[in-house]
């Protein structure tokens, strides 16, 4: 407190340098708070199991309700990929290779990122708004006053739902994208179906599918923790809750892209270390 007083003039105005310093500290403190929040959520997973009556509705909202939107967007992404790539591949006489390009893009990158983006938009912002409203209306304080840890009751079930269900959503996005791409390529663009699937099978393996699913676990964890953290620290009023919901999506989306990049590098490094002779895929 004394340092703050030293940085203020006699009118109580804060100097610009003090303000920059204060904002830097706040930024670092925010990271610390986020890490502490995440550790608490992890810790509660091993201390006590949430009740089924709490888990089931959250799993339903996060998982089952997200299935249609993920399926629809996955289908369209597969279809759009086919339409956009076809003309170039056709010019090179490689139209039957469309399957390998569409499917590898889907299972390694677009499927997981798309499912995660949909989850962040549909579920992440809704979780932040819900928890933010609970914060503003003192329901989170009421939980604590009733002797229940709010992180255990509110965050742990949402974390488990996002973490455990996002691989299924990713597989759904992959599957629907593959089907969408195949239908457009073989039925609309008249690519030979046999060779389309043959090249797909040669180029896309179980390990590629696993790479996408592996990433999705990190995406799910990041979405749950960021969204719940924003909700827990929502400012008062409709504006505060709205901002928490927006920040939940924006920060989650940035985290998804950052994780996608770093895990991609990690995966390729590990892949090359295990199979040094193999070609480096993407």
């Amino acid at each position, binding site marked *: 407190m004394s340092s703050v007083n030293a940085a203020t003039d006699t009118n109580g105005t804060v100097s610009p340098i003090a303000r920059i310093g204060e904002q830097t500290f706040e930024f670092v403190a925010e990271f610390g708070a986020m890490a502490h929040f995440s550790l608490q959520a992890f810790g509660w997973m091993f201390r006590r199991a949430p009740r089924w009556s709490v888990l089931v509705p959250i799993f339903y909202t996060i998982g089952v309700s997200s299935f249609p939107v993920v399926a629809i967007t996955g289908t369209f992404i597969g279809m759009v990929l086919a339409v956009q790539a076809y003309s170039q591949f056709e010019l090179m006489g490689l139209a039957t290779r469309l399957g390998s390009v569409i499917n590898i893009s889907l299972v390694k990158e677009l499927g997981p990122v798309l499912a995660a983006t949909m989850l962040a938009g549909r579920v992440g912002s809704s979780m932040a708004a819900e928890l933010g409203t609970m914060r503003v*209306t*003192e329901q989170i*304080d*009421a939980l604590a006053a009733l*002797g229940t840890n709010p992180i255990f009751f509110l965050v742990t079930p949402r974390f488990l739902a996002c973490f455990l269900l996002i691989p299924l959503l990713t597989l759904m996005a992959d599957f629907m994208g593959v089907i969408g791409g195949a239908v457009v390529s073989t039925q609309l663009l008249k690519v030979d179906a046999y060779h389309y699937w043959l090249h797909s099978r040669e180029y896309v393996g179980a390990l590629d599918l696993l790479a996408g699913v592996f990433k999705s676990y990190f995406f799910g964890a990041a979405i749950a923790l960021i969204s719940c953290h924003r909700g827990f620290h929502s400012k008062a009023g409709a504006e505060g809750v709205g901002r928490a919901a927006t920040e939940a999506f924006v920060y989650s989306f940035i985290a998804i892209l950052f994780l996608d990049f770093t895990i991609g590098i990690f995966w390729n490094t590990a892949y090359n270390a295990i199979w040094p002779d193999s070609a480096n895929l993407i």
Partner: protein
Amino acid sequence: MNETLTQKNPSIARAGEPIIELKRISMRFRRHVVLQDIDLTIRRGETVCVIGESGCGKTVLLKLIIGLLQPSSGVVLFDGVDLAGLGDFEMSRTRLRFGFLFQMAALFDSMTIFDNVAFGPREHGLPLNPAELKKLVDDRLHEVGLPSGIEFKKPAELSGGQRKRVGLARALALDPEVMLYDEPTTGLDPIMSDVINELILQTQRAKHVTGVVVTHDMKTVVKVADRVVMLYPHARLKPGEPQIIYDGDPDAMETHPDLRVRQFVRGEAGERLKEMSNGSDNS
């Protein structure tokens, strides 16, 4: 008979002993000082009303007592135990000895009234079968004068007064030793305000619960308080002046020598309007 009652309820046996002690408590949010050097002792069985202008730190004081906020400095003792020294588990156990009626009731809006009232007993694994749990919820709702059938509704379907009463029923479900009321009559009509005041009195008399009531409703003060503590906004204090400007009997407030106390009791703006138009009001 009295002996049996005393054995059953430790609040009676230990009546008059300090149960909550705040020692040199200060609380600030960034640069904004809300509470400064507060010393306050609350004894078992008494009902203390904490009054003061909006923004003077009454609700913050209440949240410090139950450990929902940690003081910037100072010590909060509950039954002789420093709350800052408690781990998660002990803090949760300690909070079960409190009941908290929030300003807007803070009912869980995704749950029915039954689930709200049954929340505490369920979460803390009280050995109740469904029939016993239903009886407990029915009894608590009946105590606060709510009709049967209401337990299947959601909080959004209730009036403000009904929500407050459900909040009280939920707070009483675990038989607390201390009840904390945050502006229990705010936003209610005069009749419903009196109903809530009666329920506070009834709770104190029937269960011998220690009560801390944060309010600026003088009717509540007159009706329920054994003792009144008045806080003054820190920003308006002169240097070195204590923030608690009154601590004593409710009847003596009207004739207290401090003008600020008398003005608050009578609801007089005094010089405040002039200060506000001059822009010097910083409370």
